[in-house]
């Protein structure tokens, strides 16, 4: 976080230039009101540079990647593989460790299904037995997640536990909205084979202490899987520094296109893993009696890949790199502090999650006492302010925080303090409409 502390939020001039790259931000909604988009945690908007990159791919190089001997096929393959290198560079990874998936959900399922598939007869033939054993799960083994996971990093592990007979355990959450690490050593034990957890909560904005969990997982020989959907778009992320074994994120939340996500994994682990989806592209030799598979990352990319989206995602990485991730973080941090300060002045609003900006990213969930979040969101929408309402695919977390649902504002680099003010002004209408005492 020291980079963030040294960096500063974007100036008004810089902000105006950034916003100019996002055509959608200049449209109006609900009868001529300027759009105030505070739902980037669900999906971000895409700058012209990303859309141009996709269009250029289709207009100049469109072809099926890794197939054909013609010039377009070569160019498309180059564009796709070059996109992989850019994405790898963005997270401090080796290029061959980056697998393109359709989204983060698929990336997390890929890892979970690798554990299942590793138990099949012959699946780990030729793999070092000690390494192979790390992927084989059964009764008596344990899978650890946290109570603050998005359903995408919970259900794949629940299902893996059900299929394998392993037991699912979880790290709890404190009333403040941070992981309760007091019983870390009793939850993660030598029975634990895998620990899957989120880097940043999509609801609370909490930035989790990755090192503490990784240290404990390593001590017991468990693999670690990090859901980085809410961190890669907002913080400088380096997979080597984090020390995890796998990391997943989606393109559409980081100014990139929909339909592309990333699984990063340590190469020796990827090389040991059996395939998840099978079909064209991912093979070595195919015979009627059986087949062998390509090395990673191709082993995990069955079918014609989403080359245009990968190219768009690389353009998004380039865009964020030019802005500078430390400055993106600093900017979003300033917006978060401004929103938390504004909400703190309204006693009828309760923030769900850490009340201060310490180890906190740009997602702020709150409730207006006595008013359902759906109704809060509707009043904000009427003023042109787009937020998310509901349980944000984190139902167990809401149950833990003793709320049915929340209203969530979330930021990206293109947001401004004027938009925070617009949210607060619109929010001030809520008590009057629903007869809540202020």
């Amino acid at each position, binding site marked *: 976080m020291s980079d963030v502390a040294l960096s500063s939020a974007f100036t008004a001039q810089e902000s105006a230039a950034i916003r100019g790259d996002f055509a959608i931000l200049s449209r109006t909604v609900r009868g001529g009101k300027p759009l105030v988009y505070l739902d980037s945690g669900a999906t971000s908007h895409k700058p012209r540079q990303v859309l141009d990159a996709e269009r250029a791919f289709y207009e100049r190089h469109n072809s099926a990647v890794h197939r054909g001997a013609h010039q377009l096929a070569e160019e498309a393959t180059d564009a796709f593989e070059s996109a992989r290198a850019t994405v790898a560079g963005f997270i401090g990874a080796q290029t061959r460790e980056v697998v393109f998936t359709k989204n983060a959900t698929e990336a997390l399922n890929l890892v979970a299904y690798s554990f299942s598939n590793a138990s099949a007869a012959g699946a780990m033939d030729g793999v070092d037995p000690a390494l192979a054993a790390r992927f084989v799960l059964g009764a008596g083994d344990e899978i650890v997640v946290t109570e603050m996971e998005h359903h995408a990093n919970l259900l794949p592990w629940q299902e893996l536990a059900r299929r394998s007979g392993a037991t699912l355990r979880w790290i709890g959450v404190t009333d403040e909205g941070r992981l309760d690490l007091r019983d870390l050593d009793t939850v993660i034990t030598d029975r634990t084979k895998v620990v899957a957890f989120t880097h940043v909560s999509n609801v609370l904005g909490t930035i989790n202490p990755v090192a503490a969990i990784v240290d404990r997982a390593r001590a017991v020989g468990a693999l670690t899987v990090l859901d980085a959907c809410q961190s890669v778009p907002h913080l400088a992320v380096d997979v080597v520094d984090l020390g995890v074994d796998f990391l997943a994120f989606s393109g559409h939340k980081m100014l990139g296109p929909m339909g592309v996500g990333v699984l990063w994994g340590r190469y020796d682990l990827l090389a040991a893993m059996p395939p998840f989806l099978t079909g064209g592209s991912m093979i070595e030799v195919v015979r009627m009696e059986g087949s062998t598979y390509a090395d990673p990352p191709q082993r995990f990319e069955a079918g014609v890949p989403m080359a245009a989206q990968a190219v768009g995602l690389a353009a998004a990485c380039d865009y964020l790199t030019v802005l500078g991730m430390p400055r993106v973080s600093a900017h979003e941090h300033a917006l978060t502090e401004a929103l938390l300060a504004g909400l703190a002045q309204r006693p009828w609003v309760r923030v769900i999650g850490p009340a201060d900006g310490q180890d906190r990213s740009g997602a702020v969930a709150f409730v207006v006492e006595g*008013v*359902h979040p*759906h*109704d809060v969101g*509707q*009043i904000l929408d009427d003023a042109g302010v787009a937020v998310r*309402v*509901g*349980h944000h695919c984190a139902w167990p977390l809401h149950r833990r925080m003793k709320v049915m649902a929340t209203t969530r504002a979330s930021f990206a680099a293109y947001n401004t303090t004027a938009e925070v003010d617009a949210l607060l002004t619109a929010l001030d209408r809520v008590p009057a409409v629903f007869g809540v005492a202020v």
Partner: protein
Amino acid sequence: MDLYQEIILDHAKRPRHAGLREPFDAQVHHVNPTCGDECTLRVQLLGQGRSAVVADLSYDALGCSISTASASILADEVIGHSVDEALGSFEAMRSMLTSRGADPGDEEQIGDGVAFAGVSKYPARVKCALLGWTAFTDALVQAGVDITATTTSNTTTSNSTTSNTTTGSTTTGNTITNNVEIS
């Protein structure tokens, strides 16, 4: 905005006939999985089939102002009426809510329900307004009423609503009754 009519806010603040009462013929529990809203609803019928009278409808609704008010108006509109009339109100309510603003609603049939006409312009909220009504038709089915007999609509009710069904006071387990066809 025309969504939050005074009538709706009033029903949401002071829901009529709220709370679960005995006796009852059937109880259902419906959930809106996108927002977590829940509605537990009981019906008590007097008589048989579609000419039976809805002697009581009691409910426990946990949700937004739209879903709570809708359950309240449902109870107002169907208690003391025949199942046939109640299903007519359901059809009128659903037709208005799914009309995208084209159908202003018939006050004769749905009473205060016409206040929900504005909801039909907000597709994301239609499910909120229908939660209690869908639970009601499911409860009728659980109570043994053939609700397919004379209604004319051929559309499908809320298609991703899960329900826990209880008949009388005997729980029948986690029955999933998606796609309750009313055709």
